[in-house]
């Protein structure tokens, strides 16, 4: 895939693809029939609406699909890759120091709109960048926080500027068998029998003993992972139509901006965000099935995209050089700019309690 072909996706005319989509087939490291652990979700108060636990949808034909990693979770895994040595030169490395803590902007939950960076030395620069974004110029924000434009951002605490995500990825497993497991915690010694703790029938005391690991505690029929009888698939979408809506202040700036962001997005698109997702869930590419990437046109036509990570990275480096990557910065969090952690209500209560 040549640089010219990538650039052709970005013009404003002609039969342009709307998106690139990628489907990767994954397998647990333990093997195709290995047990792996999906995320568990909290139940709602009305557990009939949201029972919690694994998210497994069953269809009328008996098939089911299990969510393994959501769009948000995948984005949180992918974005920090731009701090790794191989990719760090593609984006400005912005670090916020708050006390002893150091937070990379690549890890901030709300990206360039996150309060941790909006209440820092960068406040005015970011405000100006978001104002420019609202006015139709994305270059200032791309100089400061280009991955915010790739993964989407909302400056919810200030200008309300929004940029939709260009990249969305998720992982699902098909036709899973749900497993349960049981366990028994045994204390190292019998504390009561050894005379180290008083024998008691008091419920509160017994509960305290259990909480501190002094008693045997069974845990039965808890979540025991799943086995996938169908595919485990990672689906990634790169929205080219959204990318083509981003502009600079001149046609040349617009071209450079779009190529730069496309490069970043393609690097993120093509690097498998798999491996260790959580305890008991280590997924790798299925060596027996090649990933499939397609260009999708507005009329539904699909062509092979043939995008490789190597080609994406080469394109991204060249585009970053032409655009001019913003400077790395380490900035201090400014507590004076931050919201007081006690709300008006909490203050009233504290005052009342004192009386």
């Amino acid at each position: 895939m040549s640089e010219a072909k990538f650039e052709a996706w970005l013009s404003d005319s002609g039969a342009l693809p709307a998106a690139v989509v990628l489907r990767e087939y994954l397998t647990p490291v333990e093997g195709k029939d290995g047990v792996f652990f999906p995320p568990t979700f909290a139940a709602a108060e009305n557990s009939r609406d949201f029972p919690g636990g694994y998210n497994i949808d069953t269809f009328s034909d008996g098939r089911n699909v299990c969510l393994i990693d959501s769009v948000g979770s995948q984005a949180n895994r992918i974005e920090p890759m731009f701090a790794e040595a191989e990719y760090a030169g593609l984006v400005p490395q912005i670090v916020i120091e708050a006390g002893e803590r150091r937070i990379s902007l690549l890890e901030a939950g709300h990206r360039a709109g996150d309060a941790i960076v909006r209440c820092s030395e960068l406040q005015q620069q970011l405000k100006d960048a978001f104002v420019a974004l609202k006015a139709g110029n994305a270059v200032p924000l791309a100089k400061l926080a280009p991955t915010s434009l790739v993964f989407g951002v909302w400056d919810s605490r200030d200008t309300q500027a929004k940029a939709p995500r260009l990249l969305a990825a998720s992982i699902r497993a098909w036709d899973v068998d749900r497993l349960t497991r049981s366990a028994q915690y045994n204390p190292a010694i019998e504390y009561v029998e050894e005379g180290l703790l008083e024998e008691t029938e008091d419920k509160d005391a017994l509960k305290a003993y259990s909480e501190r690991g002094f008693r045997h505690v069974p845990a039965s029929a808890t979540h025991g992972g799943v086995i996938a009888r169908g595919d485990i698939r990672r689906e990634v979408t790169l929205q080219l139509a959204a990318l083509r809506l981003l502009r600079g202040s001149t046609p040349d700036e617009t071209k450079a901006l779009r190529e730069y962001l496309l490069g970043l997005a393609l690097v993120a698109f093509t690097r498998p965000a798999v491996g260790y997702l959580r305890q008991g869930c280590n997924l790798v590419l299925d060596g027996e099935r090649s990933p499939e990437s397609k260009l999708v046109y507005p009329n539904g036509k699909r062509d092979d995209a043939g995008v490789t990570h190597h080609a994406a990275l080469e394109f991204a480096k060249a585009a970053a050089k032409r655009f001019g990557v913003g400077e790395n910065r380490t900035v201090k969090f400014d507590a004076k700019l931050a919201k007081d952690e006690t709300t008006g209500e909490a203050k009233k209560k504290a005052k009342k309690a004192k009386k």
Partner: protein
Amino acid sequence: MSRHLLLSFRFLAPWFHGRGDEAEPEWPPSPLRAFQALVAAAARAGTLAEVRPALSWIEAQPPPLVVAPEATVSTAGYRLSVPHNAMDVVGRQWVRGAEGNAAEHRAMKNVRPHRLPDDAVVHFAWPLVDGGNEPAAARLIATSRQVVALGWGIDLVAGDGAVIEGGRLAELRSSPMKTWEPRSDGTCLLRTPVSGTLGDLERRHEAFLARTSLAEPTLRPPPALSAFAMTQYGRTDEAPRRPVAAFTLMHPTADRMRAFELATRSMAVSGMVRHAVRLTTENAGWSEERVRTTVLGHGENSAPRLLLVPIPSIEPRTRGGATVTEVRRVLVFSTDERSPEIAWLARALGGAELVDEKSGKPLAVLATASRGDRGFSRFLAEATTWATVTPVVLPGLDDPGGIRARLRQRPSAADQRSLLARLGRRREGLVRKALRHAGFTDELVFEAQIEFRETGFLAGVDRAARFAVPKHLTGFPRLHVRITWPRPVGGPLCIGRGRFSGLGLFASL
């Protein structure tokens, strides 16, 4: 040859997270949602001023056809823990040397998407009458290709558009695609744009931009969008829903519902409703002949007749299941499935008193209700299995041959079995006859699996013999019935003699 403006949105992943009213998962996506996506695309492209005339034109058009595949709402759903944008609070704590826990600043977000087929596409089709507005259509087609998402931000789509002929639209509508069309009996309520929606969106956007800032952190939520219509849509492959007039029974002097015992008083309720309908139709100028046939049921069997059906509540119980209780509602519908009178009756009967025949005193008032009211849901649903809440009065004698008399003579076990089987077949035949009389097709009559007995199939339903029936029906056998069909059948379902007064009323299981 008809022409249509077609705007299409192809989902790049087989999930749709959009929600309709009351935060319920929505499918198909509403036309208002598509309109908002066009506005957002034009605004983001910096072309809103040029596209405005086209958007103003399309918002004023009648609601479009929606062509989409079937989608399945997630059975499970899940809740995401998402961070509040409050890391400045945590940052302050860190600066002070305190721990500061980001996990304390999170909110739960409910997610229940629809699962779509792979490569799902939704089409919105507006007819172009008298040539339509070609420049507007061209603008909208170009804008549709800039639409990024339809639904939540993660519902990425590839948009497209075209002006197409009727033949092409027919191709797009062919199986497995489904078509939703605006229909007065439609049960799918979708938001649609109207003249003024664009202006309202712009006002809301301005208010959204001013909702809060670091300089002025007080939150000022923007007002909800109000310039849109709720349009009833129905699927073209589903039989039109029979129009019904729905009422709640209210106490005549207190602000509460009025209940009547199902077994002993529902006939009286039906009688009072019939009297109220008679008065209302006579006052509206209906001819004596029309009142006699349509309302009172005297006359030709083929003439349309009104069914005046008391509806009991079906209340859930804490340990699961449900129980049938008292009559608190009424449905009025016609043997003519397309009757135009029902919509008028729904308006005209609202506020009518139900007067006790003996005392002359009003016992209840009819309050117009929505057919979407939960109290009617089990009676208006589509289901494969139905069971009676009031017994079916069979349209004939089930024992003309004296089978019961012979059973009392204590025949042998084999003879007993044979006699009971004959009685059963006779009764089953009468139930099928009742279905035929109620207008069911031969196919549905033949496919019905029928069970019957003296006691009800639903908790709370009295024995059939305990139900009050009109004098002229006391000689006919009455039974509780459960029917199962191989595919869903829509309510309301009322069969047998006395069905015009609410006997033989079924609830879905």
